[in-house]
């Protein structure tokens, strides 16, 4: 449902909002379900509801929903606006952002690239990892305003059209994820790790940092160390390491899982 579109709630839906979010009912009847209502309903839905409520909530939650309209981001509504032009996945983008807006929020909320994930939003989990000017960085701790003229690559730009990046294929083969929330960050990070190794960059576990050999051959320990900024709460680490090792070494790595009949 478009925000501000005149709402057409079914009787059950109206009752649902009446019961669960009475303080918001009037607003919903006049303006429709907006993003804040949606999130609130999600939260309540997570808390457990009666069966009929759940069924109705599912209807509302699964409806096409436009999070924010462009009018919310008209220059007049933006505080301390900064004009920004930069490239995202090869395409030139021009927009005005609030000086506080992070690159992550800009990608997700303004450019509709929701692949990069907001995990901790404090630079501790790596789910928001993107590649800026060839280097992996945390988009949650990068101000969009500071990206003027830069070139950003996100998970949406890693594949070549329909052809997956070898790291992406290897993640699928080796089951390098469970819930998938950290995966975009893991993959962006892994793609950059390949380049760092090619450039001969050392890590904290490199035996002798004075060696100048380049490229560097990564052991599994090296891969773990280099990927330590990307947390995976499901614990898919061994599979992630296997996937990266296979692409890095060019040699098949045994899968750590198999189907059993």
């Amino acid at each position, binding site marked *: 449902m478009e925000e501000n579109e005149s709402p057409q709630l079914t009787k059950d839906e109206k009752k649902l909002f009446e019961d669960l979010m009475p303080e918001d009912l009037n607003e919903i009847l006049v303006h429709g379900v907006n993003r804040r209502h949606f999130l609130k309903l999600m939260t309540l839905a997570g808390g457990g509801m009666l069966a009929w409520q759940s069924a109705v909530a599912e209807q509302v939650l699964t409806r096409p929903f436009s999070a924010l309209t462009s009018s919310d981001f008209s220059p007049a509504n933006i505080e301390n606006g900064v004009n920004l032009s930069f490239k995202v996945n090869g395409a030139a983008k021009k927009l005005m952002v609030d000086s*506080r807006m992070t690159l992550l929020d800009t990608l997700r909320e303004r450019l509709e690239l929701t692949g990069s994930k907001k995990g901790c939003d404090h630079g501790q989990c790596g789910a928001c990892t993107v590649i800026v000017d060839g280097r992996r960085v945390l988009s949650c701790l990068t101000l969009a305003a500071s990206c003027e003229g830069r070139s950003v690559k996100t998970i949406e730009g890693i594949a070549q059209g329909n052809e997956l990046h070898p790291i992406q294929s290897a993640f699928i083969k080796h089951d390098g994820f469970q819930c998938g929330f950290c995966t975009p960050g893991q993959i962006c990070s892994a793609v950059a790790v390949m380049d760092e190794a090619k450039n001969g960059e*050392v890590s904290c576990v490199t035996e002798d940092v004075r060696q100048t050999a380049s490229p560097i051959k990564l052991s599994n320990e090296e891969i773990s160390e280099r990927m*330590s900024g990307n947390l995976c709460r499901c614990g898919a680490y061994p599979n992630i390491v296997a996937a990266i090792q296979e692409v890095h070494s060019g040699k098949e790595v045994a899968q750590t899982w198999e189907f059993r009949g």
Partner: protein
Amino acid sequence: MRPFKYTNAKDVTAAAKMLAANPDAKFLAGGTNLLDLMKEDVEQPNELIDITRLALADIKLISSGTNKGGTSIGGLGKNTAAANHPLIRQNYPLLTQAILAGASGQIRNMATNGGNLLQRTRCSYFFDVAMPCNKREPGSGCGAMEGINRMHAIFGWSEKCVAVYPSDMAVALAALDAVVKVRNASGQERTILLADFHRLPGDTPEKDTNLSHGEIITAIELPKNNFADKSYYLKVRDRASYAFALVSVAAALEMNGNKIAQARIAMGGVAHKPWRAFQAEKMLVGKEATEANFRLAAEAEMADAKPLEHNKFKVELGNRSIVLALQMAINGGKS
């Protein structure tokens, strides 16, 4: 996050002027610590002056002056670039190891060398605006003193503050006798010994460093030395990677035959600044590089430790870490 004006500085002196003109302005470099603290409402600047595009990223040999033959690292160069520069890897592997022991690949790609020095403590009471903290809000008290202080200081703390300084890079820089070059709004330059750059908390824990508002770090200079063959950065932490130090030790030795000609030892995770173990260094000069001598030196240094309720373990950990770091150093980084 509170609203702020985003501005750009066109050159170094202009940047210093812009900062000096606004007491509530801050420089934005890597932003990895500052933006996090702004999200937490710990830092509340009303202006961020983006200095990332200033030409202060060079790493080069110093061709004149007191540090001739040493290496200069640009204040706005990235940590990754500093760690991997051939001049650093060859001549100051201790610094490479220390930088790479800190944070994650992503953060090191963002963080600058000057910004690394200006990191603020990760004390959880400092981060939580609902808690007392003299560093964040002078006069409000110290939550950690009687609270959860497992990660906190054992040296040099005061009744006002028991926080530790978090950088790994700065610990190696302290051991390597680095010098910080800064410039002010009038374009004047001065140098500060890294060992004097950070402060002990005393009565003013809100001041982390001796940098004045309006000064910008232009470079960090490393004097030439003979430690490259025998140095090691040991970091002990709760996880194998991507965690702050419980205790870290930067150790560097220069031998004269089988005797130690010079020793440098600095510790991280134990004080409000990189802690140079001057006593231990002094005891090692002229001695043979044996485990027994390392232990005597370590024990002499750690004898002055004043642990808090939950970090008594850091004393013995510090002892053993100094010994192990020296052993690794004497063996060229191998145990």
